[in-house]
């Protein structure tokens, strides 16, 4: 085989592998879509489950997931921004900083069920929030921190250093420089990270298992101290715990969950590209 043939073979292999990566995601989407689309109608979205969840809709679970996603955003956004600003703008290269970074990396590697147990111990029992939207949001917030902090830090680091130097040289303080030069340009990137984190949080089952999710609760929650149903857990319940469950409702639920997660990822991608286009330097 000569060099040209080797080159062509390598290109073909690499292209093949790249295509292979796309196949599973497309298959999953098509499969769930094919099996679940029949269940989707107005009643399915807006009604509570009936008859031992074998009929009716998913509204309480859908709304619960929306509440939890918002709650997660409210908790992880400020924490992540704070941590990212500290790490990229203030932290000196010392043992303390290295420990914080190590903690973040390890946080990312903790299994989600462990987050769930931690949430149970810390928020539900110790802080006495009970199984509630608050406890669930806090647990999910922790779970998303590593990804949100890393993307936020990257976004802050991508703001050119000269802007900081110029701002300081014009008599701005360090905080003014962060507030007026760094954050406005890093914000879209930070938001991208938050939304990606939310996409992950919206689909997780284990962390909400002990902290917020209700098996069956047709009433909507009234406060952040109420329990709620949530889509991932609802899907788990109707797939494994309810005998005689129509397949279509299971796939319909999976489809809605999938759409929520995918649309969050899509929004994140959109924010990122529109930010790149707006960038002037």
């Amino acid at each position, binding site marked *: 085989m000569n060099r040209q043939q080797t080159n062509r073979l390598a290109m073909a292999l690499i292209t093949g592998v790249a295509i292979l990566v796309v196949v599973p995601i497309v298959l999953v989407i098509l499969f769930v879509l094919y099996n679940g689309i029949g269940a989707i109608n107005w009643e399915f979205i807006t009604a509570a489950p009936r008859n031992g969840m074998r009929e009716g809709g998913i509204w309480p679970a859908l709304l619960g997931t929306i509440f939890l996603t918002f709650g997660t955003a409210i908790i992880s956004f400020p924490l992540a921004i704070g941590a990212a600003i500290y790490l990229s703008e203030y932290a*000196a290269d010392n043992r303390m900083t290295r420990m914080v970074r190590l903690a973040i990396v390890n946080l990312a590697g903790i299994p989600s069920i462990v987050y769930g147990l931690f949430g149970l111990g810390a928020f539900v029992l110790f802080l006495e929030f009970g199984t509630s939207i608050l406890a669930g949001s806090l647990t999910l917030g922790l779970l998303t921190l590593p990804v949100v902090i890393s993307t936020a830090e990257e976004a802050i680091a991508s703001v050119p250093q000269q802007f900081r130097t110029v*701002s*300081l*040289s*014009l*008599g701005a303080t360090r905080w003014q420089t962060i507030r*007026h030069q760094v954050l406005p340009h890093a914000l879209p990137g930070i938001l991208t990270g938050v939304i990606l984190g939310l996409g992950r949080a919206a689909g997780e089952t284990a962390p909400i298992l002990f902290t917020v999710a209700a098996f069956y609760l047709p009433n909507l929650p009234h406060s952040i101290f109420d329990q709620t149903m949530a889509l991932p857990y609802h899907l788990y319940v109707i797939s494994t715990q309810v005998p005689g469950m129509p397949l279509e409702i299971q796939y319909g639920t999976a489809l809605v969950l999938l759409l929520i997660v995918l649309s969050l990822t899509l929004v994140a991608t959109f924010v990122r590209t529109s930010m790149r286009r707006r960038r002037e*330097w």
Partner: protein
Amino acid sequence: MTQAKISIQNLYYTYEDGIEALRDISLEIPANEIFVLFGPARSGKSTLLRLLNRLSDLDEGSARQGTILFDGKDVFARSVDVSDLRRRISMVFAMPTPLPGSIYDNLAYGLKMAGIRERSELDRRVEQSLKQSALWGEVKDRLGASAFALSGGQKQRLCLARSLALEPDVVVLDNPTSGLDPISTATVEESLYTLKERYTIIMVPHSVQQAARVADQAAFLLDGTLIEVGEAGKMFVQPKDQRTEDYITGRFG
């Protein structure tokens, strides 16, 4: 001679990596003149400029000895408000770097950070500084346009105007005509002559020729050491030190 605007006394500066950038520098910089610091690359010129308004604070792990007096006061004293110092000794960088935003935003930025909010005052300073840097005519109808749309020479003058808008006492220019064509260079140099009536100007020139053209006083730096300082008129005609003569006649550097 009246009291020097800036007085540098036995200044040493070493970077984190151990490179001694400045060694025992003592200089008196008089008010309302153009003071030129020249010398080959890595002779310590930019390091010295960055020390004047304490941008050197950003260098982690560096070490300094000696003092810089500005109007008789130590710039490194604890009581000094660094923001205020940087507004009074304002710096223009070699690389013209507009901040993202409009031309107007760029000029008003330092003022807003200083707490000036009045629209009329901002407008007045913007117009005045653009006139001083000979840019007003070219941009007065598009102050809202992005600063990145300006040409290289215009950006350079924008950065000069941005410093002047702060109405500083001292303007520090690190090679303000780098990458400019001869016509833009002449424009900038001409504005310097006018500016020295109001400001003290400290400048690292683009070339020895430029140094000779604009300087009132000049200092020659080599490897972080001050070789010679004095009246530019004498220095560029009859340097006292052999190394200065070698450099300005182009034997090295």
